[in-house]
Each structure stands twice: as structure tokens, then as C-alpha cells.
């Protein structure tokens, strides 16, 4: 079994590594340096670390101003207070301006855990996806998160990257053929009966679901869509055409996120039977990350169940 590590650790580690090679890199926080792990960067590069206090709206504007004068600015906070609270600052001061700001949002989804619904952002992907020109990335594990952040810093323009608090298996570290390109999904395991499209922490669950489905004689294809925008429509449609049914799995409201993005691509290009796994338009609550993921059906078992349902609907259709 792969080592488990939270993707937020990748944020701190990779920023620190990038700091050595990118003198133009500046990192901003709004009183969450420790929780988001950008604290690691502060230790090494205090002169390029900007503590903004609890003022996310201003932080986004400051990041825009830094980018407008030649910096690569990484603005970090919890997903709720970045994508949520500062949505309009991101839209107008970072999106519309096409500035080189990377929004690093941690503590996304219900796996935030005990802090409860006020802090469990299940809407960030939906919000960020509607901003023209915004790249939206949701890495699956520690290794992918580091690679994605590096790619985001190397690209020009605004990018939203989501990081999690919960420890997840670092599967990419064990993948000899691992490669990452923004906008290119990864076909993790081929299958012929049903396509499971996962993103973020559901990728490991989807691979587990494949084993569960195998016992039922169902051969699932597993795809990791780390970049939700721009979506790899080619890969999604090719797989959908092959298997004839698709299940999406995400730690986000089923409205507006990966499920919606995939549904949009499929319905225009190759409509197939579809099921969505995610938070079903309800509020989160307090609890351990593991317990909450189970409660909201974000689990290998539920992904397998929905995949079976989609498969049978196709077969009996």
C-alpha cells in the first residue's frame, strides 16, 4: 500500500523547492500559514512571504498587484475563503486581468472534518470553473499535487489548485509511468464495461472500486481527471464511447463540479448513461474525515454501486 500523505503537504514542500529556482515567486497567506503548510516556505524565504492577516479579499488584490509588477504570486487560504469569500476579487482582479496568480486552496470538501459545514467547501470547483481563462486543477495525491503546482507556476495566467487536509495514498509516487500535463487526463486502468472518472481523493477510491466491481464480473476503466478546466474532452469521450456508461466521483457538490463538466462534454459529444458520486446538494457536518466521506457516499463502495447501476442500466437499456 502506498504511503498516505495529505496534498496540503505538497503545497508547502513544492513551494519551498520552487523558491530556490524561482526568485520571482511570492507566497501570500491570510492567517493560515500553518494549516495550509505554506509555513514551510516562510521558514526558508521569509522576505518573499506575505502575511495578509484575516483579509482574503485584500489578499487577492495584493496578489494581483504583485503579479502585475512581474511576480508569480501564490495566494493561499482554505477553499471556502479563497474561492468562496473572495470569489469576486478572484474574478475581477485575477481572472479578468489574466494575471499570473495561483490560488492555492486547501481544506476543500467534507474531509475537512470536525470543523463542520461552515468550513467544508463543496462549491469551489463550480465557482472557479465559470471564470473565463481560469485553469482548475484538483490533484489526486501528494506527488501529483507537487507536479501540478510546479506546472501551474510554470504556466502563465491564473490557476486554481485544490489541496486536501486528509491523508491519501500517494499512488502517483509508485507509478513508474507517471506523467503530468495540465489539461490531460490520465487513463489509470483500462476496462470495457463502465468508465469511472475521478478527481482528487476519489482517484484512489475509484481504483479500489475497480476491484469490487471485478468480483461482480464488471470491468471498469478508471480515469483521473486532475484538470477540471480545461477538461480533457477527448479522453472522456473516447472512454465513454468504448464503455457506453460513465460514473463521476468527486469530493464536491454534484452540481457544478467534475460531474457537471463531464456531463456537459458527454451530452454535447457522445451522450451515454451517467451517474454522479459526490455531495448530493446537502450541507456537510462535523465528524472525522473518514466518517463524513462514508456518510456522503464518497467511497469506493458507493462508486462501485453507482458504476454497477450505470452498467446495468446500459445493459438493460
Amino acid at each position: 500500500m502506498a504511503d498516505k500523505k495529505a496534498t496540503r503537504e505538497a503545497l508547502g514542500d513544492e513551494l519551498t523547492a520552487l523558491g530556490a529556482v524561482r526568485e520571482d515567486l511570492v507566497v501570500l497567506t491570510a492567517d493560515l500559514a500553518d494549516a495550509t503548510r505554506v509555513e514551510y516556505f516562510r521558514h526558508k524565504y521569509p522576505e518573499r512571504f506575505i502575511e495578509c492577516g484575516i483579509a482574503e479579499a485584500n489578499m487577492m488584490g495584493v496578489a494581483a498587484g504583485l503579479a502585475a509588477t512581474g511576480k508569480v504570486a501564490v495566494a493561499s487560504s482554505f477553499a471556502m475563503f479563497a474561492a468562496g469569500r473572495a470569489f469576486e476579487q478572484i474574478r475581477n482582479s485575477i481572472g479578468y486581468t489574466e494575471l499570473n496568480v495561483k490560488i492555492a486552496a486547501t481544506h476543500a470538501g467534507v474531509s475537512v472534518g470536525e470543523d463542520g459545514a461552515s468550513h467544508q467547501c463543496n462549491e469551489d470547483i463550480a465557482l472557479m470553473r465559470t471564470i473565463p481563462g481560469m485553469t482548475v486543477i484538483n490533484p489526486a495525491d501528494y506527488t501529483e499535487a507537487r507536479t501540478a503546482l510546479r506546472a501551474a507556476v510554470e504556466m502563465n495566467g491564473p490557476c486554481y489548485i485544490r489541496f486536501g487536509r486528509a491523508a491519501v495514498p500517494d499512488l502517483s509516487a509508485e507509478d513508474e509511468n507517471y506523467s503530468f500535463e495540465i489539461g490531460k487526463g490520465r487513463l489509470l486502468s483500462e476496462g470495457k464495461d463502465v468508465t469511472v472518472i475521478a478527481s482528487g481523493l476519489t482517484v484512489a477510491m475509484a481504483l479500489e472500486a475497480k476491484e469490487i466491481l471485478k468480483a461482480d464480473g464488471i470491468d471498469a476503466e478508471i480515469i483521473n481527471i486532475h484538470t477540471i478546466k480545461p477538461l480533457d474532452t477527448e479522453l472522456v469521450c473516447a472512454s465513454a464511447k468504448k464503455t457506453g456508461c460513465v460514473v463521476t466521483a468527486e469530493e464536491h457538490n454534484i452540481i457544478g463540479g467534475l460531474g457537471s463538466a463531464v456531463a456537459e462534454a458527454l451530452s454535447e459529444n457522445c451522450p451515454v448513461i451517467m451517474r454522479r458520486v459526490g455531495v448530493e446538494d446537502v450541507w456537510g457536518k462535523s465528524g472525522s474525515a473518514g466518517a463524513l466521506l462514508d456518510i456522503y457516499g464518497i467511497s469506493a463502495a458507493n462508486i462501485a454501486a453507482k458504476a454497477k447501476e450505470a452498467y446495468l442500466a446500459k445493459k438493460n437499456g
Partner: protein
Amino acid sequence: MEITKRQELSEIARKIRIGIVESTNAAGCGHPGGSLSIADVLAWLYFGGEMNINPNDPAWADRDRLVLSKGHAAPALYSTLALRGFFPVEDLKTLRKPDSHLQGHPNMHKTPGVDMSTGSLGQGISAACGMALSAKLDNKDYRVYAIVGDGESQEGEVWEAAMFASHFKLDNLCAVIDLNGLQIDGKVTDVMDIAPMDKKFAAFGWNVFECDAHDLDSVEKAFTAAREAKGAPSVILSHSVKGKGVSFMENNAGWHGKATNAKEFEQAMAELRGEA
């Protein structure tokens, strides 16, 4: 200020005002009131020797920056930039048209000389803080100016930025609050009183200066004092008249966001040309 310089700058301010009235009239909409109130300040910034800029190289890395945080006063900025040679004055008549580089609110990628896209109130001053901090990080000596509306100061983000600028001792930042006293729904004092702005900014750790926005000597004095003040950001409380220069627009909230009709346009132009 020498008499010739004062005459020169007031002539430029008058031309800026003509550009404001002509462009909004051509567009059939726009915000003349809050544009006219900042015309003299812009004349000082862009023509008085205050700002270090180069119209032939708008993206020059070491230039001074201006963020029009009250982005709806775009016609004033456009008129100023055109007169300063960033683009042809004739372009002003394309204001707010789909193919124009002169959008309803400033766009840094479309218009040469615009340093930050603005329009949603409260955001520009934060970007100005980022630019000023960037200069500090790079040991550069360019200055950053932010023009903020008095109504705009009701936005919480303005005060987040005020805290930030003072915390980081951004003495290369100069905010100008255009105190024209009016906003869309009426008098600022009636809608949501922002007074006392001097005490508020002082309490936030800023150097506070005041000027009569339509007296160029007073404007020069305030900007010079702001430039000399070190260790903290400076704010200039610029006491202005909304609609200044066009009699029927002056001190009338109704002229916040509408253009002249044919008759009003003729009268406004006659006044600005000194024929009325």
C-alpha cells in the same frame, strides 16, 4: 507653482473635461460626474511632473503606476492618457463600443497606459498595495497612486487595504480619496457617512494630507508633502465637486452615471470652451 505652469495645467484639465463630456456623449452613457471631479488631479499627476511615465513605453517596468480604483471614472483617465500621447484623442469617441480599446471600466490589456483593470469598487487599492510592495521587494523606487471614491470607501476591502499598506510601511503608495460628496443614491453623508476620513486614516497609521481638488497649487502642495512623507503610506483627502466644470452637473448626484442629450451636450461644451 509658477503662473505659466498653473495656466498650462488648468488648460490641460479643461481639455480633459472636454474629453470626458465628448466621450460619454458619444457613448450615450458613462459616468461624467465622478470623472469631472478628478480632472485637475489627473492633470497634475500626468502633466505636472508628479508621475514618472513614458507614453512611448507604457509597459516600462520602472514607471510609476496609477490604479483608478474608482474605475467608473474611466472617461477621465482615458481623456488624460490620450492627451498625454498614449493613444490618439480621436479614440475617445469610441468609448464603450464593442470594438473599442476603451471599455466602460479600465482594462489594462486593452488600453495603453492603464496599469490595472478596475471597476468593481474596493479592489483597486488592494492591487495598488501589491504593486507598492513589489517595488519594495525589488528595491525599486517607483511610486504607486490609487484614486479611490468617497462612496467607494464604504467597501470593507478599502480598510483591509488601509491596514495592509500601513503594516508594510508602503510609503511609496499614495491614495487619493476623491471627496465629491455624492454617490448614486444621494449624499455620502446620507447614504452611509464615512466621516471623519482624516481621523480614520490617521488611526490606520497613514500620513494624511488634504487639498482643494480644483486648486492646482493646493494639489501640488498635498502631493509634494505626500511624496516627502516617509515610513507610512500617504492619503490625500481631495475635496472636490462632482461634475466640476459643467454648471448643471455640479453637485448633482443625477449626473453620476448618465450622458448628456444633444442640448445638454451643447451647453456643457460651450461652458468648457468658455463660450457660455
